[in-house]
Every structure is written in C-alpha cells, then in structure tokens.
C-alpha cells in the first residue's frame, strides 16, 4: 500500500512538472547548415522493396507504439523557424530565383546513345556531351500528361527551394540515335507505333554518382554530413503540404534520391527530389478503354478495391479530363487535412507538425504568378487554354492548402524590430485567407522561465501588417512575446512566440517558434 502510494505520488509529481519555454542562444540565426564538407563516397543503397515494406508496415507501428515521446520539432530548423540552406534545400531561392538558373545542363543534345534501362516506358541515354538522362514517355492515349506533370512539378519544387534534377520535355526520333537506331526504333514502335516523333520527359540523372534512395526515417550511416534523422527534417515533412497542393499520388524513398557530387573523397552527398510523373493528377486519369482491352490498375480506396474484388468500374472522367486531354484528374477541390499519398505511408509526412506546415505554406505562397506560369510553360502543352487553366487550378489549390495550414497556427511573422516596436505580418491576412475585420490578437509576455512578466494585452489592428510597442512593465532581459491570433472568438491552436533580448531600450530577435 505504501509502495503503491509512493509510486502514484512520484508519477503525479512527474506529470505536474510545468511548462518551460524554449530558450535560444543570443546569436544570429544560421543561414547555411554546413553539411557539404568533403566526405568519402558512401556506398550506394538501392531501395529494397521487401525491407521497406517490413519497415513501414511492421517496424514503424511497433516502434511508434513503444515510443512515448512527443513528436519532436524539426531538427533542420534554425532559431527563426526557417530552414537554412543545406544539401537538401536552397533557402534563398523562393521568390527571388532567376528562373533561367533552373536549366544548368539543359535538354539532351543529339546525337544520343542508349546506355541501358530499356523499360516499358523508360530509357536511359547519354547525350552528345556524355551527360546521362533518364527518358520517360507518356501513357499511350494520354499524350503530354505525365511528361508535363514531371516537368512542371520539378520546376515548382525547384522554385520553392528543393533540389531537383532538371526535367525537360523533348521530342525524340530514332534518327537521334545513330549508333542504336534499330534498337530505339523497335522500342519506339512497341511503345506507340502511330508516332514518328515521340514526346518524352528527359530527367538529367544521375548527377554525380547515384547512391539510391534516401531513408525515410534514419540518416545515411556512412555520410558524416547527414546528422538529422530524415523523419525529423522539415524539408521532408513539408512535402505533406506540397503533396496536397500538387497532388502527389505516391511519396516515398523512390522520390528522394541521393547523389555523391564531386571527386571521390572531395565531394559530398546532395539530396534530390525526383520522379513527379504521377503528380497533378497524371496517375488518376480515367483512360478510355478500347473494347476488349484491360482497364488500368486500380487505384483509389483500397477498401473499395477489396470489397469489389478489383472490379469496380473506373470513375467517369472529370470535367477537367474531358476538356483538357493533357491534364489528369486535377481539380480545384482539395482537402489538405485528409491528404495522404497512396500506401505505403511515408513516415516524415506522419510527423508533420503545424509549424512545418506553416513553413511549407509560406514557401508555397511565396511563389509569384510569373514563376508558376514559367513552371507550367515547362510542361509544353499544345492544346490551347490548358496552361492557363492549370495555372488557375494551382492557384486555387494552393490557397486552400495554405488556408488550412495557417489555421493550425497563429501565422505571424516578425518582419522587423525598431527599438521596442515590433513589426508583424499576419500571413493569413496578407494572403487574403482570413478577414482582418474579425481578427484580433492576445499578446502575453513571459520571462525566460515561462513566468508572466507583464499583463497580457488584446490587440485589434484590423490590418494584415501592424506594429506593437512592448509595454515597459513587461520588459525582461530575455522576453518571450507570445501572440495568439483569434478569428472571431476562436483562438488559433498554437501561438506564435518571439524571443527577444532586451537591453538599453532596444529589442533584438533571437528566436521564433510557431
């Protein structure tokens, strides 16, 4: 009895240990992660499907059940809640990139030669400069769709800051392969005998030495630069937001490719995103099936597939598909709260925190209309009106996705500090996703220990960009300003925290958390 009582008291005391805020060092935020030090070339690690399935369907549920810890904050985030530049991400690209920087090597140049990998719709080649490319064709009967999706998604993700290999839409003929003409002619005829010139997506890959897929969970053991578990990378967690926007049908290690760039011993690993031919609804299309021909593989709801024995009729073509033959089933309607790619699950997406979603939303909304148009032009649509309509759908979808993720946080960003005056932007209002007239804020002031250092204040600026003077009575050497946005009477689930060093009547930002 005494032992049980003391055990309960101990447990209660553990539970009762109160909240303690994060504390940041008084230093400027890191802008580059310094993960490109020269390292020996790691061993290639091709994706082993059986091991991956065992990991996803058995290890992960067991490990998750045995893990009582909270999902940690992303490990690749700096003190101001941003992702610094690294071998995974180019931080200063979004919104300021020169679009011409995308095509470093450009499309393949004739004459071409086959280097291997003649798949059903894929081909590995080298161009006249000796640069390797992977060519992928469209599905017969749906020209332009997959090749355009690959090229467009690659450009959009590149513009956001991800590292993607170049994808160019090209047209090839057997004459482009003087040394392999017969082989290519046969392959092209098998693929689509009706065409004399075949449209393909040329992916500039491999860049450097292909090391295979990046683990969804762990680091690459023989890469000393890879120190943040991949499941805790915001760059990967944020793909839940971008996946909902661009409608990734699948997401997994097969889309995250590592390459060793540089001379052996002098290079480092760069982490790419690739393989987006199934985005923008390209793999959800309803094909017109000729009489007697087989229908495409079933996708969609696995429970429905199970109970109907895989015999359920294909969904009718959407209005988008009927009107625009080069676009798949890619509609304006999107449900970001429910979005998940097709099974098997991808672990970083299950660890996406609201702060990760807000970061990805800012990157996504930071793309200008010019950049989106440029990306869509890379798809090379020939049907009139297709590009404009896709731009419109992308815009509608990204606003819906951003609206949901910004509603999970108080989407405030500190744009500047002058003395004790904070200049704040509410990005939900900046993007027109919430109404300024019904928005107010509650600001609390805490010291480094989390104790109140002043009375909270209620603010109703009625504008997206506003300023707040720090009350004199609330100042502390290390001050945490915690601002919760209220839409109507409803507070957002998570406040924005701004950590400031106060000295000589001036405030200096040292940390941000959402």
């Amino acid at each position, binding site marked *: 009895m005494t032992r049980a009582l003391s055990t309960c008291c101990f447990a209660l005391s*553990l*539970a*009762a*240990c109160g*909240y303690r805020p*994060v*504390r940041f*060092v008084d*230093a*400027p935020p*890191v*802008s*580059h*992660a*310094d993960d*490109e*030090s020269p*390292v020996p070339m790691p*061993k*290639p690690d*091709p994706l*082993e*499907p*059986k*091991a991956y*399935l*065992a*990991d996803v*369907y*058995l*290890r992960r549920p067991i*490990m998750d059940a*045995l*893990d*009582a810890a*909270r999902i940690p*904050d992303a490990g690749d*985030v*700096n*003190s101001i809640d941003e992702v610094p530049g690294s071998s995974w991400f180019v931080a200063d690209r979004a919104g300021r990139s020169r679009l011409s920087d995308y095509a470093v090597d450009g499309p393949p140049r004739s004459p071409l030669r086959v280097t291997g990998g003649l798949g059903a719709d894929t081909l590995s080649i080298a161009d006249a400069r000796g640069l390797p490319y992977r060519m992928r064709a469209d599905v017969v009967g749906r020209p332009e769709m997959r090749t355009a999706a690959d090229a467009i998604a690659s450009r959009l993700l590149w513009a956001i800051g991800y590292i993607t290999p170049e994808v160019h839409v090209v047209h090839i003929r057997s004459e482009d392969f003087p040394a392999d003409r017969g082989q290519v002619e046969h392959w092209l005829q098998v693929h689509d005998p009706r065409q004399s010139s075949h449209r393909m997506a040329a992916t500039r890959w491999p860049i450097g030495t292909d090391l*295979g897929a990046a683990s969804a969970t762990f680091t690459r053991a023989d890469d*000393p630069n890879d120190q943040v578990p991949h499941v805790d990378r915001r760059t990967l967690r944020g793909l839940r937001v971008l996946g909902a926007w661009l409608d990734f049908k699948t997401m997994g290690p097969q889309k995250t490719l590592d390459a060793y760039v540089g001379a052996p*011993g*002098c290079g*480092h690993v760069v982490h790419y995103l690739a393989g987006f031919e199934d985005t923008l609804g390209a793999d959800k299309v309803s094909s017109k099936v000729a009489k007697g021909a*087989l229908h*495409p*593989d*079933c996708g969609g709801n*696995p429970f429905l*597939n*199970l109970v109907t*024995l*895989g*015999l359920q009729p294909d969904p009718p073509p959407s209005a988008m598909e009927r009107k625009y033959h080069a676009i798949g089933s890619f509609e304006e309607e999107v449900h970001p709260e429910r979005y998940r790619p*097709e*099974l*098997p699950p991808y672990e970083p997406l299950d660890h996406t925190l609201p702060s990760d979603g807000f970061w990805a939303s800012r990157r996504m909304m930071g793309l200008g209309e010019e950049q989106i148009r440029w990306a869509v032009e890379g798809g090379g649509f020939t049907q009139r009106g297709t590009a404009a309509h896709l731009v419109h759908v992308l815009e509608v979808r990204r606003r819906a996705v951003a609206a949901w993720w910004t509603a999970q946080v108080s989407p405030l960003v500190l744009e500047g500090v002058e003395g004790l005056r904070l200049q704040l932007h509410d990005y939900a209002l900046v993007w027109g996703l919430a109404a300024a007239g019904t928005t107010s804020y509650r600001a609390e002031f805490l010291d480094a220990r989390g104790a109140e250092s002043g009375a909270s204040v209620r603010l109703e600026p009625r504008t997206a960009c506003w300023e707040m003077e720090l009350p004199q009575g609330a100042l502390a050497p290390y001050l945490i300003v915690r601002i919760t946005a209220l839409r109507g009477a409803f507070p957002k689930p998570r406040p924005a925290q701004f950590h400031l060093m106060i000295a000589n009547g001036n405030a200096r930002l040292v*940390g941000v*958390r959402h």
Partner: protein
Amino acid sequence: MKLSRMPATACSCVALLASEANAEPPRKQDVSGVAQPERFTGDLLRSGAGALLFVPRELASLLFFTSGAAVGIVENEQVVPRVRDFLFSRDGRIGFFPTLFVETGSSFNVGGRMIASADTAATTLRAGYGGPDANVVESRLRFARLTPVPIVLSFEGMHDRRTGLGYPGIGQDPRGDPRNRFVSTLTQASYQERRERVIASLGIRPVRDLEVFLSSSYSQRFSDDVSGGVGPRFDDVFAPGSVPGWSRTTRQVYTELALRLDTREARVAPVPGTLIEGYGGTSRGVKQEHGRFLRVGARAAGFISVYRRTNVLIPKIVIDGVAYSSGEQVPFSELARQPDFRGFNTRRDFTSMVLSLDYRWKVQRFVAARLFVDAATVAPSARDLSLKGMRYVGGFEVDLYTANTELARLGVSVSPEGALFVFSFGVAPRFGDRQHRD
C-alpha cells in the same frame, strides 16, 4: 552568419586523400540555436515511460536494422532471378526479420531470420521456436552470378522438430483403403518428427523465361509418438510394422532435375503469364534396406488478367507421383502429399492431384487479396486418379508482397473438415518444391 566550413572547391584532393584515414569528421551541426529545449507539462512523465520502454524498443529496432535480402534466399522454392534483379548491388548489409507463423492445428512458432548479402552472395539464418518439440534452425548460402546467363548455386542445412502431426493412413479414403491395417476404430495417429536435411542446388536461366535446376539432398527423419502421450499412438491405430518408416530413422538421398517455364514478369505480384514446371528425380535409402523410388510430376498454371491487368484468374493443376519397383518399400513420410491443397493436408499416396482456381487482385500497392477453391485427390497410381470423391476447400487470403517475394499472409479456408486459419510473416509461403517438401 554562416557557420565556418571548409570550402569544398578549394580543398586539395590529393592531400585530403592522403590524410583521409586521419581526417576529422565534420562536427555535429546544430542549426537550431536552442540553448534549452521546450518542456511541456507531462514531458517528464513521457520520459519516464520512455525509459521503461527502452529495452523492448531497442530490441524491436535491432530486429529491423537495415536489410539487403537477396532475391529468393527466403523462399522454399528454387529460384533463378531474372537479369534485371542483378542490376543493383547488394553489398555488406545485414538485416533481421522477425518471423511468425500461426496456423490452425499447429503450434505457434515465432522466431527470427537474419539475412546478410554481399555482391554475389547472400546467406540467411532462421530460427523459430514453438515449444520444446517444435523448433527449427535453418541456414542457407546462395551465390548468384549473371555471366553469361543468370546462374545460382545454393547450399542449405536445416534441423527441425515438429509435433502434433497426423497420419490417417494411405489413400483418399484411408479407413476404406485395404492397404491400411487399422487395429481400432481410431482414424488418425499423432506423431512427432525430427528432421535434418542438407540441399545443394544449381539453377540456371538459359533463356529469359526458362529455369533449369539440378539439386540433390540428403534428409534424415525420425518419427515417434508425441511426447507426453498426447493423441493416439501409432500402435493404437495401425498394426505394428504395417507403416513403412515408422519409428525408425529413414535416410534418403534425393536427386532431381527440374525445368520451369514462367512467362510472368514477377513471381509473386498479380501479373498475367503462364507457368509450366516438370521434374523427375531418384531417391534411394542410405544405410537401409529399402527406400529406392522415383519422383515425377508436373505443375501448370495460367495467370489470366480479368478486367484489369492486376486482377488475375489462376487455374492450376499439380500432379505428383512416386514410382517404385515391386518389393520396394517407400517410407510413409516420403509418399506424395498435397502441399498445394490449402485445406487440411492429411492425405498421402503414390500419386496426388490438386486442382485449383484462384482469383487474385491487387488491393493496394504491395497488397493483394485472393479467393480460391481447391480440389484434391490421391491414388495408388496415375491410372486410378479420379474426379470422384475429391476433397474440396475454399478460402480467402490477403497478402503483402513485393515483385518476387511474399512478405506476409493472412488467410482463412473452409472445408467440410473444418476451418483453417493461417498468419505468417517472414516465413516462406507453402512448402515449396520437392527438396523443401514437408
């Protein structure tokens, strides 16, 4: 402010390579700027719970540490991989899988499998435990090369003990078969078996869809009554000495030549194609008077896409036979059985036939479901095989698969003899080919 870093473009590669062995690894990067992490109410309680769960969590993590399985190493069937399966390297990986097998009428068996693979070789070690009289230890070593055609050489060794096995006698209707000498009204004897087996196998794929296997095995079995007197003893059911091979060690060397034509692009995934397989082998006893016989058989299956490419209708026929000269005795454990029959596999005789019709469809990536019906019969000879009096079973299964391997299976089958439930993970499906037979 950038963290200080060594400019990669300016490095002296020669100097770096020379000092590589002593090079200092990049220092741990901390970009977060966090001096003290956030702590929520209840975090200490979570930490306490985490400490309690540390040992089981680390054990589970160890079981899944990396992997690099070679194609076919976990199969109970000889496989020569296709050319494309050689096109990625597997070097220096060791992986662990837990294994679990549960089937109605057999003991719960849990264990683990370790797989290590290098460029051309792979080895697996499996151990399973289901009780003191139900355990297995198995090791396989496999070499695979591509030049000039795919070729595989493998060596295997196994020791296992199984208990609770049943023998109802020979024939489709054992009680009515005059070859069985029953001494009571009991219809089935229970027994346990200890088995050791080594197999050497050479497989080659001379053309794209054709595999040729030459294999030889030495197996040693000893059968006796179940420990503890559980279940009817053999002598309580059959006249002593009337069942060849009972209660003595049987040693057989079996050498076989098999050909398999398989046009499917993947062995396990639901895809269309045709499978035709034939084999013939000789078996002779070692250090025993009897046990010389021939095995011969064939299997044919069609994989026909219905409505979708991944909805596959699979009609199949399997015929196995044992031929012996007069005066010869074939141990009861070496009679033809029916591993392809997914009901209660209890019938044995010198000839066996199993007809199956499966409908398998893809539910989701790497997940498929199956409806099936089997009909099986045994007979003293091929001439005596008949569609009359066949045993039937129907059922449903869901499996987790990759292109060439079944990873897990959950299924139920129903027959007039009862229902059968099976769950397996990491254990090869069914009983494979003749060298890996039950």
